[in-house]
Structures are given as structure tokens and as C-alpha cells.
């Protein structure tokens, strides 16, 4: 039984507290939407959960991850503002690299590209793609290796309507498979029954 737990979590940037006293428990198959105005600490919260920033106070942990996913970092995909792709390499090379490097391979590169409706574009250099297409390749990166927890920071930035719906379907499928989604966003993501965490009020 997998759970993502944060207890009395505090985060800071440059020595200044951005948020404190955040607590949540997300069971498997549940989503948490983090909302709030600019500068309320949504991105900082996701980076603290992903252990990319040090935890200032409290703790965050996964329970029941088993041997494959003992820590939050090892159990998580992190989709930040940046796409983590090299413009000089082709889409296939980029995804193939992350698939091999991240381990726990899931979909093949072609299947993942088909899923985000970019089939047949794998040979293009990543730098040739439009903003929305780049974002979709970045989303395909979530599919090529298996991680139960998806930490998404403004995941739909730059996506068109059809891609947004496709991405919502991907998240629902991930939740049905017993995954966990934590998303910081202003826009509705199309996830029914998701918990909402309001920051900065």
C-alpha cells in the first residue's frame, strides 16, 4: 500500500521561509492539486518533495514503496518548467537516454511518442519542435520509465486543448494503475476527485 506523506513540511529559498506547516497524505490512486498565487511556493513545495531542495522543517516520505522505490526521490518523476532535453539530439535519442538512465523501463520510445501523438517525429532534432511539442516530449519522458509518484510543475504550460485532454487521460490512467500525482497548476487539469492544497491563503 503506497502512500506519500508530508508532515509539517517547511521550505525556504535563500534562507527565507516560503511556506511552513504543510501536511498531506496521498494514498495510491489519488491526486493532489497545489494551487495558489504567484510566489506562494508551489514550485518550491514540489522541489522540496522531490528532495531537490533541502527540507527546512518537518519531513516527507513514501510508505510501502518496496525495494524498488524506497525514497521519495527514487519513486518520483519530476516534470519542471524545463524539459530536460538536449536540442542538438533527436527526440528519440533524448527519450532513449532517459529511458536507459532512469531505469525501470516501461513503454518503448515509439510507443510513448505515439501516446503523446508525436509518432513519426522521433528522428527530428529536439530543437526543431514547437513549444507545445517539446512539452509533449517531456510528458512522454514520464511514460518511458516507471515511477509511482509524478511531481508536475505547471505540466500543461504551452499545450493546446487536445493535448491537455490527452494528458488528463494519461494522468487518470496513471492513477488507475495505483500511481500518485502531485501537480502545481493554475489551470484545471481534468482530474475529478483530486484533493486540493491551497498555498498562500
Amino acid at each position: 500500500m503506497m502512500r506519500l506523506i508530508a508532515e509539517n513540511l517547511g521550505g525556504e529559498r535563500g534562507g527565507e521561509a516560503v511556506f511552513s506547516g504543510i501536511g498531506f497524505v496521498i494514498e495510491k490512486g489519488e491526486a493532489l492539486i497545489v494551487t495558489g498565487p504567484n510566489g506562494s511556493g508551489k514550485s518550491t513545495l514540489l522541489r522540496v518533495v522531490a528532495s531537490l531542495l533541502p527540507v527546512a522543517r518537518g519531513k516527507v516520505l513514501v510508505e510501502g514503496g518496496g525495494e524498488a522505490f524506497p525514497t521519495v526521490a527514487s519513486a518520483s518523476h519530476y516534470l519542471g518548467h524545463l524539459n530536460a532535453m538536449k536540442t542538438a539530439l533527436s527526440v528519440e535519442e533524448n527519450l532513449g537516454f532517459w529511458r536507459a538512465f532512469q531505469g525501470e523501463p516501461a513503454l518503448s520510445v515509439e510507443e510513448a511518442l505515439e501516446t503523446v501523438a508525436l509518432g513519426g517525429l522521433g528522428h527530428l532534432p529536439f530543437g526543431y519542435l514547437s513549444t507545445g511539442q517539446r512539452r509533449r516530449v517531456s510528458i512522454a519522458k514520464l511514460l518511458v520509465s516507471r515511477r509511482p509518484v509524478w511531481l508536475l510543475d505547471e505540466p500543461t504550460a504551452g499545450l493546446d486543448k487536445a493535448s491537455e485532454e490527452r494528458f488528463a487521460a494519461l494522468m487518470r490512467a496513471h492513477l488507475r494503475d495505483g500511481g500518485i500525482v502531485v501537480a502545481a497548476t493554475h489551470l484545471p487539469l481534468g482530474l475529478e476527485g483530486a484533493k486540493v492544497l491551497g498555498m498562500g491563503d
Partner: protein
Amino acid sequence: MLALFLRDIRLSIRAGGGALVGVIFFLAVIVTIPFGVGPDLNLLSRIGPAILWIAALLACLLGLDRLFQADREDGSLDLLVLNGDRHMLALAVLTKCLAHWTGSVLPLVVAAPLLGLFMNMEPLGIGATALTLLIGTPAITFIGAAGAAVAVALPRGGLLISVLVLPLTIPVLIFGVSASYGAVADPAPFLQPFLILAALTLFLAVVGPLAAALALRHGTD
């Protein structure tokens, strides 16, 4: 890890990778020296190993600032750090160092014998210098990785890295040059400085990536 190595090699040979910049700098320095020093062939052959080593050292430092900065700018560094629980971050850094060395520094070692001819060096001296470069330059990359990791968040950290790293590379330079001289000048030994050079490389192969990984883990923001 192999995937990371291959990706970095690919990036270094693709357009904008900058693998050739070091070689061109190396070539420029070595070709200019005889014009500056003058046509004294004995003097050139005497200072040849030292000049080759100094030029190679500076050429090594040239591309180091991009080692982690490029990954930081496109967000890859976050994922490398995030995957640090799965494979040790220090190992990923070591892999990146080896790829950087293969892509940008190995060409210098290959070009060194040719440039040795410009310095009127004898074949044995050329061979010894190329061999010491082959064994010694990885050490410079490993120290440089620590400097590059510390300066990763600075937009124009290139010069800072060179200044940070240069004092630490002095032992490598000293033993590299003295081994090169030892091969040609009679009373001076070759094997002892050469073995110390190899030991320095092995030592820094552990310390450099560990220090760099520590700096990267605390440098994310």
C-alpha cells in the same frame, strides 16, 4: 551510466559541442611559441615538454565551465540529482568527466605528438610527453569537475573555474613535466614522477567526483 556517457560524447561532437575548441586553442598556443621564443632549436626542444603541458592544461580548462552548466540550463541536472538515489550522483559525475575527457581532451593528447614537432622535440621526448598527457590530463578534468560544480549557478563562471582549479592542478603539471623530462634528460628519473602522476589521477578520480556531487546536491535551487 553507459547511456549518459554516450549522450555526452554525442553532444560533444554535434554542432556547438565545442570539442574542437580546445584542440584549436592548443594548436594556436603551440604554433605561436616558436615565433615568440625565436629560432633557437636547442631552447625549443628543451622547453618543449613544459610548453606542451602548459598549453594542454589551459586547453583542458577551457571547456570545463559547460560540464554541468548546459545540463543545468535545460533541466537535465535536476533529473540527474533526482536519480542520485538510484545510481550514486558521484558515479554520474565520474561518467560525465570521462565523457568530457574522451570528447574534448583526448583529441589534445592525439594532437600533441604532431605539435611536438613544432618544438623540435626528439621522438622519445614526444612519446614520453604524449604518454604523460594521456595519464595526467584526466586528473585535471576530475579537479575541474569540482570547480565546475561549485560555479554551476554562475552565468559567467568560466574564468572563476579556471582560477579555482589552477592551483590544484599544479602538482599534476609538475609531475607530468618532470616525467617527460626524465625520459630524455639522463640523470633525471622517469618512472617515479610518472607513477606519482598516475597515483594523482587515481586519487582525484575519487575525490573530484565526490566533491562535485556534494556541490551539485547543495547547489540546486
